[in-house]
């Protein structure tokens, strides 16, 4: 009985220890990565992989592709960390853009588009639904922020941010003047900021 308690106590302590991973500042993370220290990778992965995976999943809509792309993204981060320029923004932003661009390049690649053509439509729909649920399950108690945005803003964020269309392309696609697209993008982001603040 005592052994059991000890074991329980040990587990509790150990678990706490894992949760209390010390928070590293960006320069500390970067210097670990530059020294090719595995600790740097572990920290980066434990703290940012979910965000990176979330973005990739929303761009490609399918798990098998997302699983492949996230590997590329982390290898790229590891290899290209020396090119990160802190003058232009934070590390997190840099990683987000790297993930987004890698995923968008992927869906634009020829191989991917051919595969999509051969795929029967119902499959694709099912997969995205499965993904929508997965996203919700991950945030029990937190409503999808995107679903609270006005339709025109949601559409814009999806096209611009997740599908990588240029403003010109969006303007043509939606048949709206480009100036409107610009102000609409701004308003969408301002509204998003408000919503995110409420969620915190």
């Amino acid at each position: 009985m005592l052994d059991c308690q000890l074991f329980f106590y040990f587990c509790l302590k150990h678990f706490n220890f894992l949760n209390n991973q010390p928070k590293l500042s960006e320069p500390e993370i970067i210097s670990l990565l530059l020294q090719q220290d595995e600790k740097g990778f572990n920290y980066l992965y434990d703290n940012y992989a979910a965000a990176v995976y979330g973005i990739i999943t929303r761009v490609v809509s399918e798990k098998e592709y997302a699983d492949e792309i996230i590997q590329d993204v982390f290898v790229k981060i590891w290899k290209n960390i020396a090119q990160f320029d802190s003058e232009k923004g934070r590390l997190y932003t840099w990683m987000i853009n790297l993930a987004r661009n890698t995923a968008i390049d992927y869906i634009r690649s020829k191989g991917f588009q051919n595969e999509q053509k051969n795929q029967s439509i119902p499959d694709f729909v099912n997969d995205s639904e499965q993904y929508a649920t997965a996203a919700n399950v991950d945030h029990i108690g937190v409503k999808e922020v995107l679903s609270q945005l006005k339709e025109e803003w949601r559409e814009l964020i999806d096209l611009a941010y997740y599908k990588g269309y240029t403003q010109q392309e969006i303007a043509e696609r939606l048949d709206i003047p480009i100036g409107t697209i610009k102000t609409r993008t701004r308003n969408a982001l301002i509204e998003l900021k408000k919503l995110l603040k409420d969620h915190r």
Partner: protein
Amino acid sequence: MDIKEYISSGIIEAYVMGLASEEETRILDCIQSNNPEVKQAILDAQNTLEDFASQQAIAPPPALKSAIWAKISEENQEKNEIEESVAEPVTTPLYPSQGTENNKAPLKWFAIAATILLVASISLNLYFNSTQNSIKNQLATLTIAQKNNELAYQNLKSKWDLVNNPTVKTIPLLGVEKHPDMKAVVYFEQNSNDVYLALENLPIAPKDQQYQLWAIVDGKPVSLGVFDQDAAATVQKMTAVTSAQAFAITLEKRGGVASPTMENMYVMGKV
């Protein structure tokens, strides 16, 4: 276009979402390094997208972490192998080609020893290399810090020398009605008539503009030159002047103008 208008045009949002054209991006890169307001707007927008990414996070399958680390290790290995193959030729001549049955055994031990030495040497190399790199980085940071300290010291010292010189008169220039918090100081050497200027609290002038110092002599403004904000020195020698009744600073186009733009006057002080 004024900066508020520029910020609210939607360009910042296009930039952070990766929608801006290459040219727009280049322009904004340049503006943000010179304009704190624009830089802040960009950081704010990036912050929103970071929060958005955190909020939209989905946990990846647990097996992926070790798979990715294996990939990274593999890449590192390949890199190291290239380094190793460079070191290889050194050991090759150690195998004599005329070996007979008898000396094969010692040769084997010799080869093993050589391999161990090689591995030890490579790992030591890698170790020293990484320590050296980190020392180099530290040194670079220290050198920069040292330079900044030196500069700050020189600037302070030149002010201190001026303030302590009994023939130097310190004339504070205070903000005019429109800019009540702003401040600059003129140091006037009464024997040589030399004029030194230090900007205490004036915003950084836009790229195409500079602060110009004026002396009021017999009620008329006389230019004493522009203050070079790009230079490291915070106390700068201006044109000498005799019998000034007052000093004032206006914001003018780069290089200065012949007569002051009165509505751009920031600070002024009587002798």
